[in-house]
């Protein structure tokens, strides 16, 4: 466990929003548990995040009007709140993605020069 913790990375401020939006865009409506599972899959379990921390991001995005939640049923017939990306969310994702790309390119360049 302690070994794993060393390897795990901390989430950058604001990236969680981007990840959630992107997940919803590619995977369609998802509930919180699905989003959390997906996150862990993608990050190859590098991202150690307890699933509760997802909720603030969901609230924030919903309050921005970027995603919208609605109650539904899972395959196992459990009830769950499914979040769907909205039109405004699509637009915001595009902008955020660009910002992120510019940012990461910049950091990349900086790191190259340094080394």
């Amino acid at each position, binding site marked *: 466990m302690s070994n794993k913790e060393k390897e795990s990375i901390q989430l950058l401020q604001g990236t969680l929003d981007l990840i959630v939006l992107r997940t919803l865009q590619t995977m369609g409506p998802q509930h919180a*548990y699905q989003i959390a599972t997906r996150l862990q899959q993608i990050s190859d379990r590098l991202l150690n995040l307890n*699933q*509760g921390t997802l*909720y603030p991001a969901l609230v924030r995005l919903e*309050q921005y009007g*970027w995603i919208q939640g609605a109650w539904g049923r899972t395959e196992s017939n459990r009830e769950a*709140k499914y979040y769907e990306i909205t039109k405004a969310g699509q637009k915001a994702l595009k902008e955020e993605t660009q910002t992120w790309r510019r940012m990461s390119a910049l950091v990349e360049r900086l790191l190259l020069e340094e080394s």
Partner: protein
Amino acid sequence: MKHLRRLLVRFSLLFANSRVEAELAREIGAHLALLEDEYLRQGMTPEEARRAARIACGGVEQAKQLHRDERGFQALSHILQDARYTFRQLRRSPAFTMTAILMLALGIGATTAIFSIVEGVLLRPLPFPDPDRLISLGDVTEGLHCASCAHSSVTAPDIRNYMRDTKSFSHLGGYRGRLFELSGVGEPAAVNGARMSGEVFAALGVPPLLGRTFTQHEDEEEQQVVVLSYGMWRNRFHGDPNILGSKILLYRKPYIVIGVMPRDFEFPLNPGHVNQSEFWLPLSLRPQEFTAGSAASWNSRMVGRLKPGISIEQAQSDAERVARETMRDYPAFMRSIRIHAAVTALQEDTVAQARPLVRTLFSAVIVVLLIVCANLAGLLLVRAIRRRREIAVRLALGARAATLLRQAMVESMVLSIAGGAIGLALAAVALRVGVSRLPQTLPRINEIGLDWRVMLFALGLALLTGLLCGLAPAFAAIRTSVNETLKEGGRTGTLGSGHARLRSALVVVEIAVALTLLTASGLLLRSFEKMRDVKLGFRPDNALAALYVLPQQRYRTQSAIDEFTKTLLNDLEQLPGVENVGTTSFLPAGGNNWGIAFTIEGYVPPKGAGLNMASMSLVQGDPFEALGIGVLRGRVFTESDNAGSQLVAIVNRKMAERYWPGQDPVGKRLRRGMPETSTPWMTVVAEVDDVKLGSADAETMAQVYQPVTQTVASEGVLASVGELSATDGWIVLRTRMPPEQMEDTLRATVQKIDPQLPLYQMQTMEHAISQSEAPRRFNTVLISSFAIAAVLLCVLGIYGVIAFTVALREQEMAVRMALGSRRSGVILLILSSGARLAAVGCGLGLLGAVAASRFLRSFLFEVSPFDPAVLALSAIAMLLLALAASALPARRASGTNPMLALRGE
């Protein structure tokens, strides 16, 4: 955009908390269920799966809290929670809530109303663009001391010189307000108007609502044009949109209306609201205003706008240079007059005189508010003490001090904001009713009202009050010692002595400030009484007065004027109801008390004494009998004292005593002007009583009376070519019946002689006196009502403290009585504790009164601020009231049934 949306959502969630909470619980529950399913699939036991799901989630409550922190405003939602709690608490004790809110409403309402006066009169910038660049310019004459010289004024030559020769002003002009006879629209009427240089409009910089204003060029060309005020346009022309180009008659000369000013334009900024100018016409100084006596009449004022970058000091020295040149060019008869230029900010010039009154009112009302605060703090403290057990229990269960503090603050804030809202409504009502009753000595009355600044002030005041009042109980709450309080159990016998001391201190302070206000009110009442006792020098009963002004257009010659006056006096004398009739240029109690300079034969003024000033009343007929002015010696004027006969004068006692002390003034001689002015001598024929020309509490001037027919002859070089006398005057009648009944007869008699001639300001002399008393009556009534409010609140405060102490000491009383103490002993015990508080408070209050004396002195009349009778009476009254307030709880305490009280706990 996204942030705005989020802000709105978060805010709205404050009020939908329970719904969102339920939704969240459901969502997290579903999440856990899914996790559990997963873990079960991985082969965990149900027990293990539940645990693992919760761990993966990072704790249910933690996740919920994260959600809450993100979705709403936590601090705010806590405060709302506290507010709801407070509302529940307050509903449970309606008597307390009502008392507290009403008290606050009274305090905040009164303070807000007075503040709106402070704001409208003193603080608000003048209603012109860039008001701080506007200045007033005038002369200050050396050695001249009079009440009406508070504003510096100028002569006609001054206006010309300052406008031509100063370099510091982008615009500078002269103006002069006066009454005009207005005809050509409705009934002939007397209307206030102002003659102004064209530059004045340019300096003020307010564009007209309709049409245009006149220019300096039109002024010099003597164009007969007029600009109307909004009020005149609405009231006399019914807001006619085609008003421009129509004609009105002023003193029967036609003037063309070229513009209408906006509603809030007001100039000159005269005190009161009856003297507001209704129209403006060009100053157009006439040649005769530059010669002879007119050149030495400081009857105009000047206003200007400083050039950019020029300071008031620079403008002052610039103007001073022009003033010196003006003096150099003085004609021989003005040689001894020395003037200095004075440049003051227009704002300062306008409000300086009103400042002491407004400040005093504001301090008085702040005192009332302080008492309200002290009372409320006391009440809240009582509640805090009553709730000590509850607070102790909550502390023991882990409530944080900050939470308790916040709750106490929220409670007092809720009260004070409710009180503030009601107070604001009260202030609005008070202003609606009260503004018309403000004294005529206040300028800018039309600007008083509830604007956003006043509202903000009220809100700020409410918050501040809440904060101040909440502090004491809040700290009392967090200082509650859990152990002690819980150990005490149900017994209330021992009371945290710190709280008791705090409450007593509050009451002592209340008594002290209430007493200060009470003495102030007492002193003002004494002053009012003294003013009422002043000998006015005339008999106001059965006397009627009205002003007339003969238009030059019709009365061009002296003989036409004399004919009118003679017929008027004759006709009036014939009336059955009239005993005596006369005319005079100054009406007693009418407020006109400016003077002119005299030279007295054989009198050598002490060095540096300045000019010998006296008021000059020009009379005809028998105004002495008509007004009931006592003749001390000599004879009154007769018809044979006319233009051709020897010049005569009558002086008052003050004049006689100043210049001929211990001698008979009859036969002495005096003349108009300074020693170097060439004027003929007048012989004194009588000495009369001192007459109050202004209000009774103002100083009496030296007074001279002269037959109006001899005016021109007595003026010598001061007389201008073709000067007419007796063109205006007050008709004064002594009637056999109540003077009001003579008003119509007087009007009819005048109309028979000249149907177009209006009579102005017709009033009984009783009314004139009451008018002159109005300013003093106003501040006396207001301060006294504040004092009464303060004392009542104070009594309430004392009662509260004593009653509460008695309630807490009920057991002690019961024990005392069980052990044989008598009822009277118990009563005495309680009374003496009330009396102790009152005695300390009164001691401090007397010190406060001494401190306030500096403030009050200028409002007192013939009463020392340390008047022992007033101080003693107020202190005794306060003591008695304090005793009365403690008597009720004392009686209740003595009625305690020892057995019941002992068993009760």
